[in-house]
């Protein structure tokens, strides 16, 4: 199995673990971490493909993804903190007033 296939499988596994985490865990922060892991998995794919395709576009993309991840972390934690102020919980299921 040559390197690119291995790397793609690896990133797919990481991506899946992240996705599973989002569904399994109930702590908002942990869910958020899992999403970060998913994004990193995609970064790995990009860089592997960039290496394979010998073009820099992939790496530029990773660069942009990092910027996005940073902004997301900022906003995400902001939201979690603002919720925490109302209800001392980070459990996502507690936060379900809007339904029906």
């Amino acid at each position, binding site marked *: 199995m040559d390197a690119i296939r291995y790397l793609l499988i690896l990133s797919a596994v990481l991506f899946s*673990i992240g996705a*599973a*985490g989002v569904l399994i865990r109930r702590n908002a*922060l942990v869910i958020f971490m899992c999403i970060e*892991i998913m994004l990193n998995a995609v970064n790995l794919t990009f860089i592997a493909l960039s*290496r394979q395709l010998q073009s820099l576009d992939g*790496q530029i993309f990773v660069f942009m993804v990092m910027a996005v991840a940073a*902004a997301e*972390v900022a906003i995400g934690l902001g939201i979690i903190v603002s919720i925490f102020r109302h209800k001392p919980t980070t459990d996502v299921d507690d936060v379900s007033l809007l339904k029906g």
Partner: protein
Amino acid sequence: MTATPLETVLFIAFGAVAIAGALSVILARHAVYSALGMLVNFVALAAMYIMLSAEFLGIAQLIVYAGAIVVLFLFALMLIGGRRPAEQGRLTGGLAAAGSALVVVFLAEIAYLVMRLTGTAGAKGTVTPDVIAQLGHIQLLGATLLLEYILPFELASVLLLVGIVGAVMLARARRQSRQE
């Protein structure tokens, strides 16, 4: 993309470490352990980037992810995630079971996809690893970034601006003062 035996060993090792880290994030009992798991994952990935001749990105990964984001998480954890949340039944529950089943199916689909891959048919670019080594990764990256991808670059800056303003606005303790 021929891989020397040493590289394959290292790749496998780092891969395993990354997967371990990811697993610990989702399985750890306490949020702090999952944060640490995430750190391990990021470091392993950084190492792999470097091996894939994207040195600058590896370093950037270490600084941005491992440095900034993990620290931020730990900080947030300390602020609110401190107490042991009543995380009973985090793995049980129909939702979790269904979720993981679907994820496995998703993984199978991607794996099926990768297996049937007949090598990337995409047009080969010109930037071979030795070109990178020769010109220096940062220089190359900087040039393309600021020349060809100037618009995304600016957009990234706008994005960060939004992130900052949003975060400050959300997290600021809003006294009820204005209303009275």
